């Protein structure tokens, strides 16, 4: 089991990571999700031992890895742009880690057949890696990381350079491989769809800290903070004022609701208005339709109070329109 304890790191006097702590359990895939520049990749390199942290510890099964050099950590790392060795063919790239462990050549052959089968790359052994397509290169990179049977796998935006369709295919394959091999994995990305597809648990990184942690469903249903709701694009965020324990006043109307955290009367709060109709809710929003955008199975409707909603049926322009909504308090 991997444990990260209070990792700090700064770059050119700018603080990048400010006390990152989390656990990765056996067979678990966690995903570090955050905007670019949030220090995700740096954290991976610190865990791999390629960069020292300014403070904090990396522990494996309770043992501090500070004095373990990267080549003895047994952590596989898959890079965003693959970092395949251009002077070696696909076979020698994948065999590299095994050769470093001084495996015998027949053992290497057997293992390579297994791994290449796993990533659907049989027959590619003696192709030059520079001649492979992006998806094939990504498979070689994955095979190379898998081959020495690492005790942890790390992925640094592994699908960033691929187009959407290929990305979905590879992501599903990767999900299958991770389940099959039961290797714990840390997956870094800025793409929430990727994160929610692959992760057992998602960690949201913002300003050098983990601001939300949980299963994809938890994070989605309870973002808890304005930043998370905004980053995940969960809906409309409006400002409000607490009138009493059961009422909140906003520019688009007064709503009856209770915030989970104690608020004083008159205090300002942010509310998340989910853009879907919630027929069982008591609160209701009124507005005039100013824009309608067709989006395959639904219509995105913008109102004159700057809120938007998704509807099944196309409304008329300039029509006054009422919708029952779910409201949540954010911090």
């Amino acid at each position: 089991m991997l444990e990260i304890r209070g990792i700090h790191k700064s770059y050119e006097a700018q603080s990048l990571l400010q006390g990152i702590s989390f656990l990765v359990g056996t067979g678990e895939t966690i995903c570090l999700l955050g905007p670019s520049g949030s220090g995700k990749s740096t954290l991976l390199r610190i865990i791999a031992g390629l960069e020292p942290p300014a403070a904090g510890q990396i522990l494996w099964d309770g043992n501090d890895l500070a004095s373990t050099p990267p080549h003895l950590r047994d952590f596989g790392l898959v890079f965003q742009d693959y970092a395949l060795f251009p002077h070696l063919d696909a076979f020698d790239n994948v065999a590299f880690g095994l050769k470093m462990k001084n495996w015998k050549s027949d053992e290497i052959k057997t293992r390579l057949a297994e791994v290449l089968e796993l990533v659907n790359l049989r027959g590619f052994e003696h192709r030059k890696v520079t001649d492979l397509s992006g998806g094939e290169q990504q498979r070689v990179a994955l095979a190379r990381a898998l081959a020495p049977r690492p005790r942890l796998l790390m992925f640094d935006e592994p699908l960033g350079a691929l187009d959407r369709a290929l990305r979905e295919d590879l992501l599903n394959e990767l999900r299958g491989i991770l389940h099959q091999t039961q290797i714990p994995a840390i997956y870094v990305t800025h793409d929430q769809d990727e994160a929610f597809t692959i992760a057992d648990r998602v960690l949201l990184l913002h300003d050098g800290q983990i601001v939300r942690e949980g299963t994809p469903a938890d994070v989605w249903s309870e973002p808890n903070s304005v930043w998370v709701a905004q980053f995940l694009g969960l809906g409309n965020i409006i400002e409000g004022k607490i009138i009493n324990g059961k009422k909140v006043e906003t520019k688009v109307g007064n709503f009856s609701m209770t915030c989970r955290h104690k608020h004083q009367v008159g205090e300002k709060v942010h509310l998340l208005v989910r853009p879907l109709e919630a027929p069982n809710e008591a609160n209701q929003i009124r507005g005039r339709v100013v824009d309608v955008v067709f989006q395959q199975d639904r219509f995105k409707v913008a109102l004159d109070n700057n809120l938007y909603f998704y509807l099944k049926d196309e409304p008329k322009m300039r029509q006054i329109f009422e919708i029952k909504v779910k409201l949540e308090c954010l911090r």
Partner: protein
Amino acid sequence: MKSIFSHRILIWLAPLTFLGVFFFYPFLRILAFGLSFETLKPINLQLAFHVLLFTFYQASLSTLLTLLIGLPSAYLFARFDFHGRSLLRALSTVPFMLPTVVVAAGFNALLGPRGWINLTFMHLFALNSPPIQFVGTLGAILLAHIFYNTTIVIRVVSNALSKLDPKLEQAARSLGANERRVWWNVTLPLLRPSILAASLLVFLFDFTSFGVILLLGGPTFATLEVEIYIQALQMLNLPVAALLAFIQLLCTLAFSIIYTRLSTRVTVQSAPRSTYQHKANTIEEKVFVFAFCVLLFTFFILPMLALPLRSVSRLQADRGQQTQVHYGLTTDYYTELFINRRNTLFYVPPIKAAINSLGYAGATMILSLLLGFPAASALAKPGRLEKILDPILILPLGASAVTLALGFIIAFGRLLILPWLVPLAHTLVALPFVIRTLQPAIASIPDRLRQAATTLGASPFRVWRNVDWPILSRGTLSAATFAFTISLGEFGATLLLARPDYPTIPIAIYNFLSQPGDLNYGQAMAMATLLMALTTAGILFIEKQRLPGMGEF
């Protein structure tokens, strides 16, 4: 299609005519001269074989020693961040462009019989003769070659090393390779083409080196180049000189072809990654960085410092001046440059040599730009024609200056009384450099820029004026400076072609150095100092203009 092709021919007309008349025609004459039955006698072939053997020997030895210093230095520049890094890097680029006479004079001022070290020893231990025999030894040649060419290894290899994607090494680390195995299994195989390319280039320069060998080694160390000069000008045996020149051309052509093949491979394997230098952390790293900084700094700076200092110091009595000598600082060597002390018609005062040099350099600059611009703009967007012409244009680069001059002598023997043959030869030497400087600058302007300007209403002239020229002006200035400094310092071709009454600065320095007496020596030092100042200014100017991402050599 057809009209484009003929338009291209038009562009090529001037450069190709020039090369045809002044390179290929003389080259064919050399062939005819050198490969006749009369020339191919056993005795001549035996001479050629011996000379070739020694040329290979000294070039291999020089290359090996250059790598020995250059490779660690390349590592130093690619991987470490230290105080004075950019200064040392700038300093390391200067020797490569310095004229051979300046380098020879610099080493002479440091280690020669009248140099600082020998005079200091003689003074300290009251010796009558210089204790260190440096000029006239193989060691002097080797040292000067290392001084010249370490830059190439540093440039090419450290460039490749710093372009190497650090993720490759990190990937190897995460796959279980320790630092040593990362080096052997990843870094070194990826660097191999650039190390080979650098070695080959160094070898090529050592192979064709002329001035250093003649000035520091003396005529006893007969390499192909020196022997061509001796046969042509001292033995007046043009056929043997032509035979040697033919062998020389064949060798350099072979090296150039291999080099061009290699250097295309060099560019393929490097990833477009930014550099990553770090401060020395461990004790080993700190010792390495410190030791190599000191070594490189002293190695590069000492000859270049010894020269100007020697030019303002009177350390020995001149001939016939035994009674009264004022040791110490003096400007005499500089003022003497303007005086015709011997009062003879045959003596040309050094100031006239300077005027000749500047005139030649100006003519070379204008001519090589006029010829280089059309060639470079055609090469920047290569078509089928350019693919054929490209290697033809590098050919003169492979031919040494002495060979070019020999071709002139054989082809235009009767015209040698004309002083303007010299700038023509200089243009041949400078043209490949000018083209190689202009070409990437022209190629760096994407057509989209011009198209954008056109759609915004710019006429073809205004497109050129407002888009092309602002981007090209820096490259053009560099190319002009290149041509100017090359001509100023050119020694080999000038020595064969210049008339005695039209010497250039390098020739005057050579003459002063080969004459006895402290005053002559001092004047050589003074002129070499002036030449060094001029070229160094030129080099630093070119370095400042260097476009990011421009080719190294």
